[in-house]
């Protein structure tokens, strides 16, 4: 029934129905934003990435074949947008670090929300441990345990095989186990 409604919404959106379009965005926007946020951490950047993903998704809505769920399709686009930002960010960070080491500057400007997230993270050993994982492991964990996607869907979103998702999840859990054991003594 839900799928039917979603298909209907997409069809109507493609026909230029503004209300249907709005409904579609509202329905999936929070999840897409949180996916972006869980990857990028910076709320401002996550919003931009989510918007970017949405615009891309809406622009190519006619390419959506319904082979995967709309959410999976949207997540894939969002993830790609976030990864592009992470790559850019990594280049900028490298440049920043270089400049800081040259100019001996240690300034970090964070938004209030980002600061709050980081503070909360600091108080939560699990979140800290998740943060320390590599990108693919962190992503697999977030998609599995926050977004609660099945492995098959995670594979679609991450555009890797299910076996690779399993490897990432398995590796992430082992790492988390190790980190948390050392932090807390006993898990």
């Amino acid at each position, binding site marked *: 029934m839900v799928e039917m409604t979603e298909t209907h919404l997409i069809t109507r959106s493609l026909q230029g129905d503004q209300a249907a379009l709005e409904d579609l965005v509202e329905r999936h926007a929070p999840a897409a934003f949180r996916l972006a946020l869980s990857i990028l951490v910076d709320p401002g950047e996550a919003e931009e990435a989510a918007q970017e993903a949405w*615009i891309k998704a809406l622009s190519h809505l006619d390419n959506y074949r319904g082979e995967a769920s709309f959410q999976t399709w949207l997540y894939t686009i969002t993830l790609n947008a976030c990864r592009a930002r992470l790559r850019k960010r990594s280049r900028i960070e490298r440049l920043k670090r270089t400049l800081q080491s040259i100019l001996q500057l240690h300034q970090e400007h964070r938004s209030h929300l980002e600061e709050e997230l980081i503070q909360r993270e600091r108080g939560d050993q699990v979140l800290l441990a998740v943060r320390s994982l590599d990108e693919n492991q962190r992503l697999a964990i977030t998609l*599995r345990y926050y977004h609660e996607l099945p492995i098959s869907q995670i594979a679609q979103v991450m555009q890797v095989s299910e076996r690779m998702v399993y490897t990432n999840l398995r590796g992430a859990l082992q790492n988390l186990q190790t980190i948390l054991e050392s932090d807390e003594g006993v898990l």
Partner: protein
Amino acid sequence: MKTLSHDDVQFLLLSGHRQLTASQRSELDRHLASCSQCGTFARQLRRLEPRLQYSLSVQWDSMPLPGDFTRRVLQKFGRRKMHNRFGSISRGLAWTGMLALIAVLLAWAIPVLVFNQPPYGLKLPQPLSRILAPALTASDMDLQPDDLGEDWTLVVQQTAFIPNTYWATDDEGLPFIGEHKNKSEPPFSPEELDSYSMHGFAHKDREVVIFSATVLFIDLATAQRFAEEAFPNVLNDSDIPEENLEIQIFEVGKDGTQIYLNSYVFNNEIQIASAGFHKNRVIFVFFVLNHKEGPIPLNQEQLLEIVRRVEARIPADN
């Protein structure tokens, strides 16, 4: 039923075994009961998974979707659509323009590429081989015996690069340009010379020769060089005794271009050379009058008549 490996079991555990069939679940349980490695993994997972779910939810669920997110997305999307629409219109226009330009260029170039014609709107330079004063008797510069009366006969008529010159009746050399400086050929190559014709007439009894020649050159510099070589004295007045020099100038051509007709009268012969430059061509008429018994002062009126006849035959477009 296939026995489950450690990997299979851990994959199933990670996948969540809610969708397993009863037999798969019992197989999984059997494996977990007998395998300490997978059993440990399952226990760790059972402890870790709720903590992860909780911490991640607390962390991210609290983050509200920025206000107006949907509106901003739709606004940006609307602008993008508009941009794409106009972009596609612009692209369409650009393509149409480019195709139109290509079509125009092709239409312009096709006469050149296919028909060897000048492109539309352009004129080719004047063909170099254009003969303004054709050779042989059809020449505008040609003087027919009738022009001079019954007593005159054609003694030479030839076109370019025929190295022969003919003398009328006594087989003596004709003092013509071809023999200038002992050369039997005009010292010009076909690339330099457009057309060249000469015509000589002799009077049977008095052995008077009237000779006319037309030389058309490709370029003015060559024409000038030719004139300098063929008529050093014509172009260098100082070499000509003043008392023997008479110069007449005739104006020809609709555009007022002047052809200078220079007449020279020498002691024992009358030699009239008329030479003119017009653009890339030299037109000259060359008269030699000679007689065994001595100079024959040609009637001035007769000479002028000849010149007028020649002048009348110069193409009007000159």
